[in-house]
C-alpha cells in the first residue's frame, strides 16, 4: 500500500473533517475525484455559515444596529483574510465576486471597456477555460480589438518560444491560467508576468485551479489581476475573488450600478466609492465571504506546501497507474502537474466511462471541461478527468484503476 508522507499532517483526520465523504453512491463508498469542478466542504466551513446565520446575520454597511455591525465586521475581516492569503498589499485590492467567471467579466467590462482600443490585442493561451475566453471575445467584438493565443505543445505546456512574436506592444493584457483544468499544466506565472510587463501589458491570472492547492503571493508573481473561486478551495459556492493592484483598480470605472457602491446619488448623476466597494453593487454574498474566510483558515492550518505536495503525489501516482490500462492516452506534462489527470480510453467514450465509474461510486468528470478549443487542439471531443484534493488517498486511486480495468473489459 502506498502512503503519502508529507510533514506531520494527519491526512486521515483531515479526511474525517468532510462529512460528505461518508456518502455512498449506488451502494459503494463514494470516491470523489471531481474536486477540480468543485471541492467538498469541511465541517468548520459548514459551521461558519451556520454560525453566521444563527448569530450574526444582517445586511452590511447599512444598519446601525448590533447585528449589522457584527456582519459588516465579519465581512470586512474576510476581505482582510483573503488579502493576507494571497499576499495582497491591502484589503482594498480584494473585490468579492460570485467566482472566477464573474471576476474575469468584471475586468473585461470595467477595465477592458475603458482601456482596450480597436488597435489593441488581448493575449490568451490555447488552454484557457471558456470563462477566460468568452468575456474577451465579447469585449473584442464590441471594440474591434483582436485576440491572440499562445499555442499549447504536445506535452501540454505552453509554446513559450512563440512568446516574442505574440507578445508585441499592441498587447494590452495577457490573461492566462495558473493551472490548466484539463491538462494539469502549471504555468510559469512570474516569468509570464515579467515578459508581459516588459512590453507594457497588464496581466490577469486565472487561479481557479491553484488558489486552494498551492501558495500564492500576488506580489511575488507580479500579476495585476488574479481571479479565483471559493467553491474550489473548501469554500461555499457563489463567492469568489478578484484581486486587482490598487493603482489599476483606482483607474477603473464601476461595472454594476446599485446600492453599496455609491457615495451619493442625485437623479442625474452619482459619485462612486473607491475600490473595492465601487465594484460591489448591491447586497453581497456576506455568508459566502465569511465561509471563504473559514475555508482559508482551514487550508492555512494544514499548510499549502503540504497540500501541494500531497496532491502532486496523488496526481503523479494516478498518471503512472492509468498508463497501465489498455488503449490509453494520458494528457498533460510528465513531470510537474496539478492535482488532476485527463485521459481517454480507446474502448470507451468519456461519458460511457464516467457513467460506468459512477455505478461503482467513483465520481469523475467526462467531457470537454469548458475547454473546447483545447480539446480540438488535441483532436478529441472530450476526456475523462480524475481530480484530487488533500482528502483523497492513494487507496482510492488503486480502486479507480480496478474500476477502469473493469470498464476496459466491459466496453472492449
Amino acid at each position, binding site marked *: 500500500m502506498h502512503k503519502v508522507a508529507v510533514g506531520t499532517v494527519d491526512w486521515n483526520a483531515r479526511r474525517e473533517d468532510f462529512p460528505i465523504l461518508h456518502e455512498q453512491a*449506488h451502494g459503494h463508498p463514494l470516491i470523489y475525484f471531481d474536486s477540480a469542478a468543485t471541492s467538498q466542504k469541511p465541517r468548520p466551513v459548514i459551521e461558519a455559515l451556520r454560525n453566521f446565520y444563527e448569530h450574526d446575520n444582517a445586511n452590511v454597511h447599512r444598519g446601525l444596529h448590533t447585528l449589522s455591525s457584527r456582519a459588516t465586521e465579519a465581512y470586512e475581516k474576510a476581505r482582510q483574510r483573503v488579502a493576507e492569503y494571497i499576499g495582497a498589499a491591502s484589503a482594498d485590492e480584494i473585490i468579492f465576486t460570485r467566482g472566477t467567471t464573474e471576476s474575469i467579466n468584471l475586468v473585461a467590462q470595467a477595465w477592458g471597456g475603458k482601456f482596450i482600443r480597436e488597435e489593441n490585442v488581448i493575449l490568451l493561451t490555447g488552454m484557457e477555460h471558456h470563462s477566460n475566453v468568452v468575456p474577451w471575445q465579447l469585449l473584442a467584438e464590441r471594440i474591434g480589438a483582436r485576440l491572440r493565443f499562445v499555442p499549447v505543445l504536445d506535452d501540454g505546456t505552453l509554446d513559450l518560444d512563440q512568446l516574442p512574436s505574440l507578445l508585441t506592444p499592441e498587447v494590452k493584457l495577457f490573461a492566462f491560467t495558473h493551472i490548466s483544468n484539463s491538462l494539469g499544466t502549471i504555468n510559469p506565472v512570474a516569468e509570464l508576468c515579467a515578459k508581459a510587463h516588459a512590453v507594457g501589458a497588464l496581466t490577469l491570472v486565472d487561479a481557479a485551479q491553484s488558489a486552494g492547492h498551492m501558495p500564492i503571493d500576488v506580489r511575488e508573481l507580479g500579476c495585476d489581476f488574479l481571479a479565483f473561486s471559493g467553491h474550489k478551495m473548501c469554500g461555499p459556492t457563489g463567492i469568489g475573488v478578484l484581486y486587482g493592484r490598487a493603482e489599476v483598480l483606482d483607474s477603473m470605472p464601476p461595472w454594476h450600478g446599485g446600492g453599496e457602491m455609491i457615495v451619493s446619488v442625485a437623479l442625474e448623476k452619482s459619485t462612486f466609492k473607491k475600490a473595492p466597494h465601487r465594484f460591489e453593487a448591491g447586497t453581497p454574498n456576506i455568508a459566502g465571504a465569511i465561509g471563504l474566510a473559514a475555508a482559508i483558515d482551514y487550508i492555512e492550518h494544514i499548510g499549502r506546501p503540504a497540500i501541494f505536495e500531497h496532491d502532486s503525489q496523488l496526481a503523479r501516482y494516478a498518471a503512472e497507474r492509468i498508463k497501465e490500462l489498455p488503449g490509453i492516452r494520458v494528457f498533460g506534462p510528465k513531470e510537474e502537474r496539478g492535482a488532476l489527470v485527463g485521459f481517454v480510453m480507446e474502448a*470507451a*467514450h*468519456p*461519458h*460511457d466511462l464516467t*457513467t*460506468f465509474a459512477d*455505478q461503482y461510486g467513483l465520481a469523475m468528470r467526462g*467531457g*470537454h471541461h469548458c475547454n473546447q478549443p483545447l*480539446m480540438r487542439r488535441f483532436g478529441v*471531443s*472530450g476526456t475523462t478527468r480524475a481530480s484530487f484534493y488533500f482528502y483523497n488517498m492513494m487507496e482510492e486511486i488503486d480502486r479507480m484503476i480496478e474500476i477502469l480495468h473493469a470498464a476496459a473489459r*466491459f*466496453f472492449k
Partner: protein
Amino acid sequence: MEIEELYQEVILDHSRRPRNFGELPDAAVLVHGDNPACGDEIHLAVKFDPDGGLEDIKFTGHGCAISQASASLMTMKLKKKSREEVMGMLRAFHDLVTDETNDASKALGDLRVMQGVRKFPQRVKCAMLPWRAVEQALEQGAGEATVSTEPS
C-alpha cells in the same frame, strides 16, 4: 446491476459495429445533429420514397456508445417506414427513454433495449440525438440542416 441494464449487450454490439453506417450519395436530406454537452455527432442522410416514407437512411458520426447505438438501431427500425409510422415511433421512443411508468410499446421492437436510459437522465439527450435528426429531416424534406440538443 443497473449498468448492464443501460449497456445491454445489443447496445454495446451496435456501438462497436454500427449498422447503416456510411454515406448515402443520393440522399434527399442531410441533417447534422450535435450534442454540444457531450461532443456527440450524428450526420443522418435520408432518401424518401414517392409517398414521403423513408426509402433509405444512413448515418456517420462519433460519440458515446448510447448515441451511436441509438442511431444504429433507429436506422434499422425506420427503413421503409411511412411518415406517420416514423412520427409515432419517435413519440414512443421518447416515452420509452424518459417516462418511468411507460410500458414499452410493442411497436418499438428491438428499440426496447434502450429502456435503461430512463434511469440515467443525463444520457437521454445522447439517446434522442438521432431521433431529433430524423424529425428534422422529415420537417426539412430536402437539402441540409443542423439540429442540436442545446438549441441556441
